[in-house]
């Protein structure tokens, strides 16, 4: 099997269509199991009470927010090195989901912070770097949006994502440094209780659900992008008609 066949949008389009339902189903299953563990099976925490149950969505979204940026940067590198259109479209499709997870990590973190720290927002190292990550996502999307010519947008935004990816660790490190310099926002995230096995399992399941969801939604969005951009290429219309005929 020649995998490079799928590097062309025309042949990737149906493949993505076939994969999506599987990932959606997996996401639903993992989420159901994770939610069961997180909301019913896991016992109430001695220190935080039930507030800690936010961890099951918070950690999953926080992990995904960073992971998606890395994956996006990977596709951007591929698109620049091999001048691959599909890779650029993958990056384009991932960005909104990444930004969404970042925003959700911030919101869930803030909602967690109020009961535990007594404030929605503190200039904690992780929260601050997460906020900056959100700005990086928005910058990427805004730059894409501002350029009309899709190929130019591909290349310019890919370059930006790479520059950003090189900077993410530096930003993270510097913000951490800044935080210790200022004696922290009085609370530290690492003081979370050592996790019970059931909690850990629940978090992992939720993270897997987020993975599968992100893949499914990105595949769907990339199909929309392929159709929008290849609308004049002939095969796109055929693909739509073939689908309608089924």
């Amino acid at each position, binding site marked *: 099997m020649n995998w490079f066949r799928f590097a062309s949008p025309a042949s990737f389009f149906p493949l993505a269509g076939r994969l999506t339902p599987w990932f959606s189903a997996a996401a639903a299953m993992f989420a159901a199991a994770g939610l069961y563990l997180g909301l019913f099976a896991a016992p109430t925490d001695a220190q935080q009470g039930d507030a800690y149950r936010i961890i099951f969505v918070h950690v999953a979204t926080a992990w995904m927010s960073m992971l998606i940026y890395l994956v996006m940067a990977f596709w951007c590198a591929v698109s620049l090195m091999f001048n691959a259109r599909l890779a650029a479209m993958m990056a384009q499709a991932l960005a909104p989901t990444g930004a969404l997870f970042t925003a959700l990590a911030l919101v869930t973190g803030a909602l967690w912070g109020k009961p535990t720290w007594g404030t929605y927002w503190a200039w904690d190292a992780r929260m601050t770097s997460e906020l900056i990550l959100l700005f*990086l996502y928005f910058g990427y999307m*805004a730059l894409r949006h*501002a350029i009309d010519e899709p190929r130019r947008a591909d290349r*310019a935004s890919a*370059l930006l994502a790479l520059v950003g990816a090189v900077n993410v660790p*530096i930003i993270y490190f*510097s913000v951490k440094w800044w935080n210790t310099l200022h004696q922290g926002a009085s609370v530290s995230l690492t003081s979370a209780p050592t996790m019970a096995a059931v909690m850990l399992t629940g978090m992992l399941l939720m993270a897997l659900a987020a993975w599968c969801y992100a893949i499914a939604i990105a595949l769907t969005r990339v199909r929309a992008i392929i159709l929008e951009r290849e609308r004049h290429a002939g095969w796109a219309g055929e693909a739509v008609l073939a689908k309608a005929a089924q």
Partner: protein
Amino acid sequence: MTATAAPVGRPAAPGAWHGAGWAVRRDARIALRSKAELGVQLLFYAIVVTLVPLGVGPDPALLRALGPGVLWVAALLASLLALPRLFAMDFADGTLEQMALSPYPLPALISGKIAAHWLATGLPLVVASPLLGLQFGLGADELLVLALGLLLGTPTLSLLGAVGAALTLGLRNGALLALLVLPLYVPVLIFGAGAVGAARTGLGAAAELSLLAAALLAALVGAPFAAAAAVRIAVD
């Protein structure tokens, strides 16, 4: 023999230094002709820095604590203010495409432009900073660290900013440029302001300053190539 190292028929790229020198000379000469915009930037810096003592009141301890951060944030914003001018006019009048077509390596030409830009916009801030730092009651060693930090940090700002400016060529928006560039400025801000803070508490700023230097080195190596790639995309 070195001559055979180059494939037959491929001319060797002419000197990168000459290219950079060309750009520095040209841009410095233009900047010296129209001094107005330089003034705007320095004035902005001064206004921002003067404003804070007026806003937070005359408590010396408070001012001294705020000083480094305010001076650095102001430097960041002032640098941002000057960025649109780095490439936009050259792009509009066709200079940038001539540069891309010249036999000099484009990253070298771009480095020259960045250097000239820093000379015109960053260096004045470095020079003015001790004076403005006095308003916050900073001591001599803090002022020294402040100036040193700006000397190491503002070129990094220009370099990173150049990438953003090149990426937004032909796009109307000054705010977009800020959105792309300011997050990248964060480490410089933290280490720069941190250095002065460390000097104040007597801890010594060597660590922060070396981090600033390292960031500068990294930006020096990477940014001209990234900016050149962005310029190539823009002239296509």
